[in-house]
């Protein structure tokens, strides 16, 4: 994992957690486990699972099946969905009208039961999705969020200075284009429907899907021709 040091705030950001204080010189920084010793947190989660299975409150098969579900939900699902929307105007209309119904129609298992809103990028509006409180993310269509999405800099700055943040992702949004930042803070989940790039008229649906990266569906980048 990439790490960075942020001297302005004296923190070391590991993507999903941040060490406070003065970085490496912090006398209170925790000491990592000695090699070979079972990891405290892994032991903890195993113990919870075993106890609840023994009490008959959950089954080990359910947990195994959930691992498979998590593995099966990848950004490729979202890419295929966007490519379909680009090639089938009626489907796109249904997707924008009711995201949850449309992804189920497309065959995606909405396993976490959340409601999906699809946000269309247009020449006038650029949408950007963040969760400032935790890590809400459209998991059925995009899988699990990348570390940077859960990081302090992204969550803190997306709502405050979206244009500067987008520049760091190499995305220049002209002043004539409105930015709509969506703080995914409660029951809805958000998927960005990027604009189909010019010059892709002859591409097949799978070729189009290959242009649709995870980041374009969060709104931090836009699809590019290879």
């Amino acid at each position: 994992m990439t790490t960075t040091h942020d001297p302005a705030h004296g923190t070391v950001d590991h993507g999903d957690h941040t060490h406070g204080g003065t970085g490496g010189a912090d006398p209170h920084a925790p000491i990592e486990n000695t090699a070979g010793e079972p990891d405290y947190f892994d032991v903890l989660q195993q113990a919870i699972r075993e106890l609840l299975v023994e009490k008959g409150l959950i089954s080990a098969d359910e947990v195994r099946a959930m691992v498979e579900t998590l593995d099966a939900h990848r950004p490729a699902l979202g890419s295929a969905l966007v490519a379909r929307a680009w090639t089938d105007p009626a489907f796109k209309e249904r997707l924008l009208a009711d995201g949850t119904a449309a992804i189920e129609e497309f065959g995606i298992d909405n396993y976490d039961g959340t409601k999906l809103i699809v946000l269309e990028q247009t020449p006038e509006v650029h949408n950007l999705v963040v969760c400032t409180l935790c890590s809400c993310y459209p998991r059925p269509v995009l899988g699990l969020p990348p570390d940077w999405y859960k990081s302090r800099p992204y969550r803190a700055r997306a709502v405050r200075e979206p244009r500067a943040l987008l520049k760091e992702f190499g995305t220049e949004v002209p002043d004539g284009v409105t930015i709509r930042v969506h703080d995914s803070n409660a029951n809805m989940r958000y998927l960005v429907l990027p604009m189909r790039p010019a010059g892709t008229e002859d591409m097949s649906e799978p070729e189009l899907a290959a242009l649709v990266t995870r980041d374009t569906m969060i709104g931090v980048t836009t699809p590019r021709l290879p």
Partner: protein
Amino acid sequence: MATKRDMVVRPAHDLGGLPAGPVVPSDHEMTPFEKSCHALLNVLAEHKLVNTEEKRRGVEDLGAQIIGELTYYERWAVSASRVLIEKGVITSEELGARMNEIRARLTEAAA
């Protein structure tokens, strides 16, 4: 420096608008621990043993220092254990005993 009121009103998870450095486009493949932990918490939520809001509340209640130092799924594991103990689903005593058993098992297997 945050006031004492701020520390109560704005727990460490509420980050919108705070100063922060550049975004590092980092990611990593999920480790087996992370996958198991995620799957376990999803199952706990389905059975309402630890629903999503309880899990989040449990993480928030860890406090700024622990939130800052633990990784994402380490926080989930601790949160789940505390919520389950609080609700009387498991006791700290049986959890501690089981953790010792598991550690003994893992250490033996590694030897």
